[in-house]
């Protein structure tokens, strides 16, 4: 679903390329840039929500000049450098086995393939989710009690 810019009215491709590299470098998922008569919106997936659109660039002409104001989205999600533990099922994510128990893992935890990293509950059945890969947790990407879908990134490893 990548509709590029309309033909013949190019955005500065070099500039776009630089922006995209910047997004990768700093793990940004969204950037809105308004400059002159043109606006640029860049979105980078996967985004931790139920609907995950693929990366798309929109090029929009605005009538009045806009102040140049790059904005970044809150959830950093670096793609190529990091590895992810993704949800193997649909359900509700829990960081620990019970409300009083400590979390299975947190940022900095070293995990092995068999380590339980979280619980996902569906239909009153609590399933312990194994890491599947070894490494160190760099980020917990979802909140305790949040609904997660299949393939949704739960943890980022460094």
């Amino acid at each position, binding site marked *: 679903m990548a509709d590029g810019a309309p033909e013949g009215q190019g955005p500065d491709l070099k500039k776009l390329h630089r922006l995209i590299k910047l997004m990768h470098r700093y793990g940004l998922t969204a950037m809105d840039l308004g400059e002159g008569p043109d606006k640029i919106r860049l979105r980078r997936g996967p985004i931790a929500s*139920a*609907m995950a*659109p693929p990366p798309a660039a929109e090029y929009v002409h605005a009538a009045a000049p806009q102040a140049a104001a790059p904005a970044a989205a809150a959830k950093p999600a670096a793609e190529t450098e990091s590895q992810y533990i993704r949800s193997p099922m*649909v*359900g509700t994510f829990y960081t620990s086995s019970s409300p009083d128990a400590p979390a299975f893992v947190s940022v900095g935890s070293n995990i092995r393939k068999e380590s339980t990293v979280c619980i996902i509950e569906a*239909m009153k059945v609590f399933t312990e989710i194994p890491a599947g890969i070894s490494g160190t947790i760099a980020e917990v990407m979802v909140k305790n009690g949040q609904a997660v*879908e299949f*393939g*949704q990134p739960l943890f980022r490893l460094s």
Partner: protein
Amino acid sequence: MFQRILIANRGEIALRVIRACRELGITSVVVFSEADRGASYLEEADRAICIGAGPSAESYLNIPRIIAAAEVADVQAIHPGYGFLSENPEFAEICRSCGFEFIGPSHEAIRRMGLKTEAKIVANKAKVPCVPGSDGPVDSETEAQALASKIGFPVLIKAAAGGGGKGMRVVRDADGFLAAYRTARAEAEAAFRNPSVYLERYLDNPRHIEVQLLADQHGHVVHCWERDCTVQRRHQKLVEESPSPVVPEAVRTKICESAVRLAKAVNYYNAGTCEFLYDPATQEFFFIEVNARIQVEHPVTELVTGLDLIKWQIRIAAGEKLTLKQSEIKRHGHAIECRINCEDPGANFRPSPGTVNRMVVPGGPGVRWDSHVVAGYRVPTNYDSMVGKLLVHADTREEAIRRMSRALREIKLDGIATTIPFHRLLMQDEQFRSGEYDTTWLEREFMPRNRDRLGS
């Protein structure tokens, strides 16, 4: 009425249900697999939840994942669409026991209608004629001969233990019966190590006539007239229309009324279709089966009756009364549907998935396009090959055929091979236009006759 509905299906039928929800003010939640990620129809739903990888077993056929999605989305009902789990009685039962209404019939009705033997029992109880035949294998020659006369010629002798044409014989009269019976048994013994055969009336030129039913949970059942689905290839429907061009009005009423009787006999509710074989020579009709779900070709009925069947499904599931009186359900004009598949008609209808690089949707009066496909859409290889349904509605069959020809000229689906060229030829065909053909006509006559023109 439900606030939120989960749509446990994909593609054009998912979009159809999303549209009905939108118009009813119901929040729609659609599931999708990794193979459907990014499809534009998902954006029409209020929420989309990824439930698994592409293979159906991990997604659209995966009951725990679908129920889990229903749970996290906190819906009140689940619409199964057609195919996939729509006629799975366990799924219907699980939905309801988990507190989600299943938008369809009771699981008991699904189970009963899904068993051919059970369905026949119900049909007999409702005095709905079935294909005359033996009720099991016939092992004695005298018994077989007597039964054959009772059934009425031509009679089909069929091997009980297998298919593929082995142990199968069509007998035209009583004189040839015994020889055919013995040969069939010998063949069955050789092929399946079981000489058992059973008997059935053989229909030479059957037509496929099906009746659309709607019933509420308060015992009110109506029919929405019939569809003629005789144009088939390998038992797959390619073209459907309503009304049937060959069924006389009196017979039409009888067929439709018998479908209603059958539905009542099994306390059926929600939408369903009762399928019959019709013999134009004798004007006899025979019950084959009930499809306890909404069908692909439901828009044909929607066009001639003006009813929105999906909305009625939702209302019925929510417990509302079916406020339609049989006398109020009128037919107007003629509707035809052409199923557009990504198959190459010149290469034996080989599936030809790919990416649609150009899409022009036909429009104008009396044209309806039900599809999830847009320009840039990549057809996933995990599912069926149907990319859309092109429908027309007009005052007469002749006009409808002309309109369909027009729409088939306008429609553009470039980047993949489709059956559009096939449908174009069909609409020009004199025999199709005459309305006189049977379920094997397409493969027997039309395809060989048009082999060169279809070659790509």
